[in-house]
Structure formats: structure tokens, C-alpha cells
């Protein structure tokens, strides 16, 4: 009856495979097509996912600074078609501006200032603390009576940018995400795991890769869907046959 969307920033198809995260893979899984976008930018991708429209031009016109504060018009999104939705921390929707601004400031500081180890430690810590908060909110929402839950987890992306080369660290985080997916799946509702883009290594750092990840706990093979097709998929295939 209800739809749960686990939105994971930068969840990388190849790592889900490599670490064999069974709960993230679910029954069917694959890559998403984001080739219509010039760059895999977080805000652009999530806003386009929500609305089913390519929002690149609109968001880019805001400039690098303002784009992070962009909000979509709720009526344009599939969320508006649900009665009692819960959207946790999603970019372009209910994003925690202060938290994510802080992360980007530290990221910038890491590259510009000298005490890198210390900055990285602070950065990782900030991301993990936020993750714990989101996880708690998500677990609470699972017990409430929502017909739609979207929870956005940014930890894999945030930590990945400075640590993607540290596979052990990434493995620990992927296992954590797998555990979260397991909890959602246990409830027997419709579960969609989706990422905006994946990640590839630049030495020890991480860069966005140009495809995303999707998986479903229903045997509906989507092939390699465009990110902008999910609005329809959710409304027509997932919501209605509930």
C-alpha cells in the first residue's frame, strides 16, 4: 500500500555489486540513465527525479552558490499525489540547508587549508552525525502511517568525496546502507532504492560517475530508465497497483 523510497546520494552500482549488498540490490536492480544532463549535479538530478522534468537549465541559471538552495514547486512533483507523504532531507524539497552548507564549506576548506587531517576528521564526523539523525527519523517514519516515505541519505556521497579510495571505509558505509534497506524491506511495502549518480575514484578522492542506481523489491524490470522517467513509474506502476 505504501511506497518507500530510499534516496542514496552517489550510490555506485559497481560497489553495490562488489560488496554484494543484497538488500540494496533487492529483487531487480540496474543503472539509471542520466546522459541527458551535462554534469551529474546533485541538485539538478534530485529535482528532475521529483518532477520528471529536466531541471538542469533552470537550476544552473541560479549559479553555483544559489543552486544549493533551490526548491521545486511541490505541485510539480509526484509527492503531491500522495495523501500523507514524509520526505526526509531531500535536495530540492526538504533539504537541511544549514547542514549541507556546512559540509560544503568544510570540503572547500580541506582543499584550501593546511591542516587537512583535522578538517577531514571534522568533515567525516559532521556527515556521520547527520546520518545518524536521518536514520533515526527514517526508522520513526517507518512506524508511522505514511503512504509515501522518501528518505535521503547523503553520507556515501559526502564521505566518498574525500575517501572514495579507501574501500574499507566505503564498504563499512555500504554495509550500513544495506542494513537500512533491510529494515525497510522487512515491512513488506514497495521499496525503491535510487541514487542520483554513482561515484568513481580519483586516487583517494571521489568524483560523480555518469549513471545512477535503482532497485525494486518487485519483479518489474525497468531496464536502464532515465531518472526523469521515475515520476511516471512511481505514479503509474508503484502507486496504483498498491
Amino acid at each position, binding site marked *: 500500500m505504501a511506497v518507500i523510497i530510499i534516496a542514496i546520494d552517489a550510490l555506485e552500482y559497481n560497489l553495490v555489486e562488489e560488496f554484494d549488498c543484497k538488500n540494496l540490490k533487492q529483487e531487480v536492480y540496474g543503472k539509471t540513465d542520466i546522459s541527458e544532463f551535462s*554534469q*551529474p*549535479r*546533485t*541538485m539538478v538530478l534530485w529535482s528532475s527525479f521529483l518532477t520528471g522534468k529536466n531541471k538542469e537549465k533552470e537550476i544552473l541559471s541560479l549559479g*553555483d552558490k544559489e*543552486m*544549493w538552495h533551490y526548491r521545486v514547486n511541490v505541485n510539480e512533483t509526484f509527492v503531491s499525489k500522495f495523501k500523507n507523504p514524509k520526505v526526509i532531507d531531500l535536495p530540492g524539497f526538504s533539504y537541511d540547508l544549514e547542514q549541507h552548507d556546512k559540509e*560544503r564549506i568544510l*570540503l*572547500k576548506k580541506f*582543499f584550501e587549508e*593546511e*591542516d*587537512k*587531517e583535522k578538517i577531514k576528521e571534522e568533515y567525516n564526523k559532521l556527515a556521520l552525525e547527520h546520518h545518524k539523525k536521518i536514520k533515526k527519523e527514517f526508522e520513526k517514519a517507518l512506524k508511522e502511517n505514511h503512504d509515501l516515505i522518501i528518505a535521503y541519505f547523503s553520507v556515501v556521497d559526502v564521505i566518498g*568525496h574525500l575517501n572514495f579510495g579507501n574501500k574499507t571505509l566505503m564498504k563499512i558505509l555500504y554495509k550500513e546502507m544495506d542494513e537500512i534497506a533491510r529494515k525497510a524491506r522487512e515491512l513488506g511495502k514497495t521499496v525503491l532504492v535510487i541514487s542520483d549518480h554513482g561515484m568513481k575514484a*580519483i*586516487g*583517494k*578522492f*571521489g*568524483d*560523480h560517475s555518469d549513471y545512477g542506481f535503482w532497485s525494486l523489491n518487485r519483479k518489474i524490470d525497468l531496464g536502464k530508465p532515465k531518472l526523469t522517467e521515475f515520476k511516471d513509474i512511481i505514479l503509474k506502476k508503484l502507486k496504483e497497483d498498491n
Partner: protein
Amino acid sequence: MDHLDALENESIFIIREAYRKFHKIGMLWSVGKDSTTLLWLVRKAFFGRVPFPVIYIDTGLHFKEMYEFRDWCVKKWNLNLIISKNYEEAEKLGIGPKDKLKCCTIRKTEALKKTIEEHKFDALLLGIRRDEHGVRAKERVFSPRNKDFYWDYKNQPPELWDQFKTQKESEQHIRVHPLLHWTELDIWKYIKREKLPVNPLYFAKNGKRYRSLGCMPCTKPIDSNAKTVDEIIEEIKTSKIAERSGRAQDKEEAHAMQKLRALGYM
């Protein structure tokens, strides 16, 4: 024989092999602690002389203490100094530390290429150590490079016992690494034992000191109160931070930053 003696004897053997086996040899000297230790070992190998040129790559961006220390050593040890430089070209093209990758390439790599070409060096002694950087763990003592400095580390000849690669193919030059088996701590212990001169930048001033030396814009000091060689040794024994963390010139880092900028993060 304690292990510093063992390292010294081995390094001298390697230096003498290189000197005998190659026609035109030089050594890279950055005036830092490693290559100055190497210089000292060269003097020991040749009973007080340095019988080949010492190459200093001047990027035009070094600390004044480095130039001072260089000139002091040149005089004291009667060195045949070659200054390898290409920074005029960099400045003409307006390439500076803002673009780290390009800046390093043009000021260092291109400068050295020119010097090798000009002097026809077939072997260079370098003070690199295996513990300095991950990829260096794969280095050999005698390591061939092609003319573009390409290092084919997956396909290196084996190096058994004391038998090194001493035949070079045309277009190649051989990099010789007499300090390969030394650690940072070994270097400082040896500096102490031999009472070697040390660049003042290594000692703490106002709670900061340099752990490795390079160009001013890209070399950052670390927090430290070590004002003597003894204190540095103690510091390294207990330190948990990688030596090169003070150098912001890591290529990956520059590349990653470029990408993040493209994604709107910066």
C-alpha cells in the same frame, strides 16, 4: 654493525656502482634533508669529494633559506652546481601555483628534462625513500626511465642481491636510489650521528616547522615545537601524520578539486 652502519655501507656501495657504471652521472639535490644526506654519503664514498655535478631544480618559488643553505653548502663542499630552471617560461605563460599540475610540470619536470638533454646525463642519483609515498614501495634501486620520464613499474627487471640494472637502453636514463631502504627516522638519526648541517626551516619557529621542503605556495608547515634534531627524532617516533601531508602538491588532490568545482561544490 648497527642498522645505520648497515644502511650507510649499502648506500656507499650503490653510489660507487653508479659512478663506475655510467658515463655521465649527476645527482638531484633539493637541499632537503634526504638529498643532503645523500650528498654526505657521496662525499664519504669518494673520500671527501663530489666527483659529479649536483643539480638543483630552481622553480623560482623556493624559500630564501633554501637558496642560502644551497650556496653555503656549495662553498663549503666545493660542489659543481648545475641550476636547472624553466620558471621564466612558466612566468611568460602565466602558469603559477593556482594550477598545481601545470605549474609542477613546467617548473620541475620540464626543467629537468632540459637539463638532462643539455648535459646528456645517463644516470641520476636521487634521495627518494621507499617509505615516503605508497607507489615508491615498488621502486628498484636502479630504475630505468624513458625520455618522457615514464616508469613502467609493472614490467621492471628483477633486482637480485647487489646486482643492478647497469645497462641502459638508448633514450633511457637510469634513476639510482641509494637511500631507498632508509626511513624518515633513519635519516634524522643519521643526521644526528654525523652532525650534518640542517636547513633551519626544519626547526620549529612559533610552533610551526617544515617536515619537507618545496615551493613556498605549496609547502605548509606542521604544528611542532621541535627545535633540535633530538626533538625532531622524538616527534617522528610518536607522530601519526604522514610526512608529505605538508605538501599540497598532490596531483590527485588538484584533479579532485577541479572536478568538484565543475559540480558546483567550490
